[in-house]
């Protein structure tokens, strides 16, 4: 299930141009992060993926179908979208009913619905709260309810807008393991994030946006080593990258895991010294 964006322009009614010529292909099963400073057009771009926004010009194809010809509620079958603010969607009396809302709208039979809801609650560590009122939960938990409610829709593409904002360490790890599960089940994941450490550890490909355009697009490890690109997009490199750079490593590390494994190499044999001496 792929997404193909061709020459996408989008202008708001008040005259602000949010996207000016975006071309992007997201292949089935990819985990791709979209980064960039506020106002770069990240959210506007991903809102085209499920048809909430329609191009001013250009096309967005989801699995070959032009989104301009489909209703948002029809595209909901292909693209699950987790909004940044959970308060814009929570309405049900219980967490379980909230999570079941999407699958019910999509007309899934009761058995499948139950399995999906159970799985989504489990993945977001909310099983114990399934009978609670969503507003009894903390903000971080409510945000996970919003994630669960989209996971339970079992869509081949999942878009997450700022999934880690307001989450504590455990919550961020949960989102990470959800992303891993989505990848293992072959789903396409698109994430918008400001959390560069999270991005480095959980996404394989990074698209960098600035001023309504894509300024870089490539494997995570390459993008985060490109200072010029990061400066243009006004984003900070992951903390491990900054650390290893300060330590004077020729080739900086991106994640904790990478740093540790390369330190291990150093311990074991100076022949693998990153300075290559």
């Amino acid at each position: 299930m792929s997404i193909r964006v061709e020459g996408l322009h989008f202008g708001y009614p008040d005259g602000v141009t949010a996207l000016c010529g975006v071309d992007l292909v997201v292949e089935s099963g990819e985990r791709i992060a979209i980064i960039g400073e506020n106002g770069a057009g990240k959210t506007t771009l991903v809102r085209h993926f499920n048809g909430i926004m329609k191009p001013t010009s250009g096309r967005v194809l989801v699995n070959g179908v032009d989104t301009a010809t489909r209703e948002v509620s029809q595209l909901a079958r292909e693209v699950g979208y987790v909004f940044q603010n959970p308060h814009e969607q929570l309405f049900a009396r219980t967490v379980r009913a909230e999570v079941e809302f999407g699958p019910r709208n999509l007309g899934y039979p009761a058995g499948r619905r139950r399995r999906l809801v159970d799985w989504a609650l489990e993945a977001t560590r909310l099983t114990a709260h399934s009978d609670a009122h969503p507003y009894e939960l903390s903000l971080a938990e409510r945000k996970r309810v919003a994630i669960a409610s989209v996971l339970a829709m079992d869509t081949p593409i999942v878009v997450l807008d700022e999934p880690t904002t307001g989450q504590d360490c455990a919550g961020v790890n949960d989102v990470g393991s959800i992303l891993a599960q989505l990848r293992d089940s072959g789903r396409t994941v698109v994430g918008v994030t400001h959390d560069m450490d999270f991005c480095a550890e959980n996404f394989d490909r990074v698209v960098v946006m600035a001023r309504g355009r894509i300024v870089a697009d490539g494997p995570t490890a390459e993008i985060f080593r490109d200072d010029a690109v990061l400066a243009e997009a006004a984003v900070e490199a992951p903390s491990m990258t900054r650390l290893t750079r300060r330590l004077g490593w020729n080739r900086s590390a991106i994640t904790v895991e990478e740093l540790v494994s390369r330190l291990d190499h150093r311990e074991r044999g100076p022949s693998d010294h990153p300075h290559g001496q």
Partner: protein
Amino acid sequence: MTQDFYRPGTSLIHRWNPVTTLSLSLTLVVTAFASQALWLPAALLVFVVFPAALVSGVFRRLLAWLARFLLPVILLLFVIQGLYHQDGPLLDLGPVGVHLDGVLFATRTALRLLVLTGAFLLLLFTTHPGELMTALVAHGMPPKISYLVSATMQIVPAFRQRAHSILDAQRARGLRTAAGPIGRVRALVPLVGPLVLGALSEVDERAVAMEARAFGATTRRTSYTVIADSAAQRVSRWSMLVITIAVIVLSATGVIR
């Protein structure tokens, strides 16, 4: 809609202290309603409201809004008052007739409505609502009233924006909003729920945030934005107050009719 009235400008009236413009509007309205004479509201309209609108560059918008608001009302007034009245007909049209006192009544009411609406449209077109509130507070209006008015005006666009986001979020979860009357009613729950819950929790947060900034303090407060005023405007405001009181007194005692 409230946000659409005011547009920035540099005219004399735009630069007036909002309280001066408000005084002018109130004086116009009181005067227009004080007398039975037709010439008075007509003169106010032609010699005060329209020239003021021309000076501040809102004349065309004023006419457009007056037509939109009042044209149907005035037409109805003339039909009802002109045709169905007690006295003998001015013009006999068989089963119905046009009556003089009916036409007079309709004309008077129409002129008064034109002054009333025109005066307040002039105020709304040339005065930033926030500045009006600040100026009124500076003149001793309780800040709570100012908050009540400002919050109400701000909440409409904010609410609309929020309703839009909620609609997007629920449609993204497969909610169909255009599926017959029953479907529509059922779709309301997931839309109204977050709107109301959100508004309630916002009230709470807002109250705390305002209290944290000493909204309930009883001392006389100073204003962050100082709104320009002048001696001439002060004098004119006092004069308008005197005129208004005089008109009310003269009208009540039957000196002017």
